């Protein structure tokens, strides 16, 4: 054993000396005292030891009896002492491991870290436009609003689906589905091509329409047994989430459309979002968040999901995949939870969790900046804009007079439309002004980038 090291023969001592003790003065005594069974009296704190043996115990008997105010106080203390101010980072491009000759991973160019020069943009505090949305269903678990890539917004009001063309402001009615035919409408979702739209119904059917010719193409039925409250498209696959807890992948081009059924939720599936790649996030009324991988064959794995995430204590409806950071998923909990949580979808780890203060109904990422927008319920019914990753509140947009259940963003990424139970549909230019819709210039070099590097 080399000189002076607190090595294996002393590891027991290393543990109970306490984490903050300075090791330097102890070295000398270690050399004299090589027998590990004789404790070093000089290093023992008898008063502390006595306390821990006697009084200390009493304090620990009822650890569960911590009042909520005490917990909040401890949390505030921890924050004040900067315990929450650390971020943990890993470098993306990992080295290859020996034996398996993995082709050399793409090496990141060692470019100087660039900070785009940003001006603080002005976020208008009031909505730009308000439209009337009578008879909109006040149901947390539905998804009645979507903005397609052809710049047409679809909203379901009761039994009718209306289309609003953002370029000229005209409104048209797509279809009305009476209760006998399967209505009311419980979800709407535009296909990626911006031309086809899926409409989920209360009777568990899903209708596919082509809005350019105003015609219904087909009805998907037989998969769900209860209403279809959530929809998500992935190219030609339409994923449907039902009140029966099932998540079904339907191939809309094929006659027998059911390709795969994901079982996991036991209550209504209210949130459903595909990532840019092959992962699907589903949130349910059972407080669970599942991540499914399209490439995982269901027959080989005993269980189908990639991750089963249990962090929230209320229904998980708000889901949003980060556009600028792969594998990052943001989720929001309902009234009993009120938290926004960030997950690494690859490992299933929860990266961050913040309490937003009220029910989180919906989440949207800003495609141009590193920001996250959340919509809330009681009491302020506001939209909150957070800076990511610091989670500092940049703006709070009020205007709605009841909970903001549905949110969607324009194809150019500047405007957000929100609909609430107060029967209004409001438009906010929160992500940027429509004319200046360029992403922040990434190639600009910070003037001192070269000076700080050590060569």
């Amino acid at each position, binding site marked *: 054993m080399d000189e002076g090291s607190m090595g294996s023969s002393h590891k027991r001592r290393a543990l109970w000396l306490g984490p903050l003790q300075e*090791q330097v003065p102890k070295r000398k005594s270690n050399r004299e005292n090589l027998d590990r069974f004789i404790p070093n009296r000089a290093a023992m704190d008898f008063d502390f030891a006595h306390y821990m043996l006697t009084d200390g115990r009493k304090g620990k008997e009822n650890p569960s009896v911590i009042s909520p105010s005490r917990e909040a106080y401890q949390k505030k203390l921890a924050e004040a002492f900067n315990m929450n101010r650390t971020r*943990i980072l890993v470098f993306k491009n990992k*080295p290859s491991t020996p034996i398996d000759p993995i082709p050399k991973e793409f*090496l990141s160019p060692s470019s100087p870290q660039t900070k785009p020069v940003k001006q603080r943009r002005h976020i208008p505090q009031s909505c730009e436009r308000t439209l009337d949305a009578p008879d909109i269903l006040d149901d947390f678990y539905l998804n009645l609003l979507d903005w397609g890539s052809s710049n047409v917004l679809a909203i379901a009001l009761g039994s009718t689906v209306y289309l609003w063309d953002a370029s000229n402001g005209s409104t048209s009615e797509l279809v009305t589905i009476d209760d006998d035919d399967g209505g009311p409408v419980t979800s709407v979702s535009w296909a990626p091509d911006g031309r086809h739209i899926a409409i989920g119904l209360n009777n568990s059917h899903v209708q596919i329409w082509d809005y350019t010719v105003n015609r219904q193409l087909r009805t998907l039925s037989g998969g769900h047994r209860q209403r279809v409250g959530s929809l998500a498209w992935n190219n030609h696959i339409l994923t449907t989430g039902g009140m029966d807890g099932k998540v079904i992948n339907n191939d809309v081009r094929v006659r027998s459309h059911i390709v795969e059924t994901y079982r996991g939720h036991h209550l209504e599936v209210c949130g459903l979002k595909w990532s840019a790649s092959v992962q699907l996030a589903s949130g349910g009324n059972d407080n669970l968040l599942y991540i499914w991988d399209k490439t995982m064959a269901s027959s080989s794995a005993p269980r189908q999901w990639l991750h089963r995430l249990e962090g929230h204590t209320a229904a998980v409806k708000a889901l949003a995949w980060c556009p600028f950071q792969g594998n*990052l998923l943001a989720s929001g909990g309902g009234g009993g939870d009120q938290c926004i949580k960030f997950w690494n979808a690859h490992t299933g780890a929860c990266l961050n969790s913040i309490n937003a203060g009220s029910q989180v109904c919906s989440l949207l990422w800003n495609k141009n900046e590193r920001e996250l927008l959340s919509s809330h319920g009681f009491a302020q019914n506001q939209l909150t804009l957070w800076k990511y*990753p*610091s989670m500092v509140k940049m703006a709070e947009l009020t205007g709605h007079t009841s909970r903001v259940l549905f949110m969607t963003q324009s194809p150019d990424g500047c405007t957000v439309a929100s609909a609430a139970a107060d029967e209004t549909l409001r438009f906010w230019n929160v992500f940027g002004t429509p004319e200046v819709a360029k992403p922040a210039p990434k190639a600009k070099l910070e003037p001192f980038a070269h000076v700080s590097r*050590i060569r």
Partner: protein
Amino acid sequence: MASRTVTKDIITLRGSAAIVSEFFGYAANSILYNRGLYPEESFVKVKKYGLPMLLIQDESVKSFIANVTAQLSEWLEAGKLQRIVLVIMSKATNEVLERWNFSIETDSEVVEKGVSREKSDKEIMREIQAIMRQIASSITYLPCLDEACKNHTSFPNYFNCGVFDVLAYTDKDIAVPFTWIESDPKLIANPQMVKLHSFDTKIHKVDTLVSYKNDEWDEQ
């Protein structure tokens, strides 16, 4: 101990950051060699800190460590780096087996006001040398990383029983570069901990600690 040299050298913030990040590069290489994460043949000997230090030649690992240390150096100069952790995980189960924790205390006055400090270079080298020796000798008490390792005699033979990664704990207010992503701390439950020596450049103080998963064989 030799008598302390009288001459002291000026240490600037940038110099100190260079010393610390270079130290981390060599320490990481040493851990990779001593813990048997890469085969012996892929390392070459160089002289550094008055010791024969081993550096890996594999291009991807070399560039990974180079990229990481370059970034660490930047963060150190900004005074934003709190600690660096090298984690070793089992290749099969992805369970964290070992954590080499280098905590960093930065003298904030130097970062804010740009003053420099004085300390003998030789003394810093001596302190780093002591830590490097400890890392090398750590294999005598650290548990084997894999069943197959138990067959080795002195140095582990070539096994890919573990994979490694580097975590950087930084202040929350830094701009995250595009090549880095957030991670969880990858902690070990009920670890055994051994504190190694520390070194101090008078601007950055680095404490070293290795924590490892309790191996049943080690229970006394």
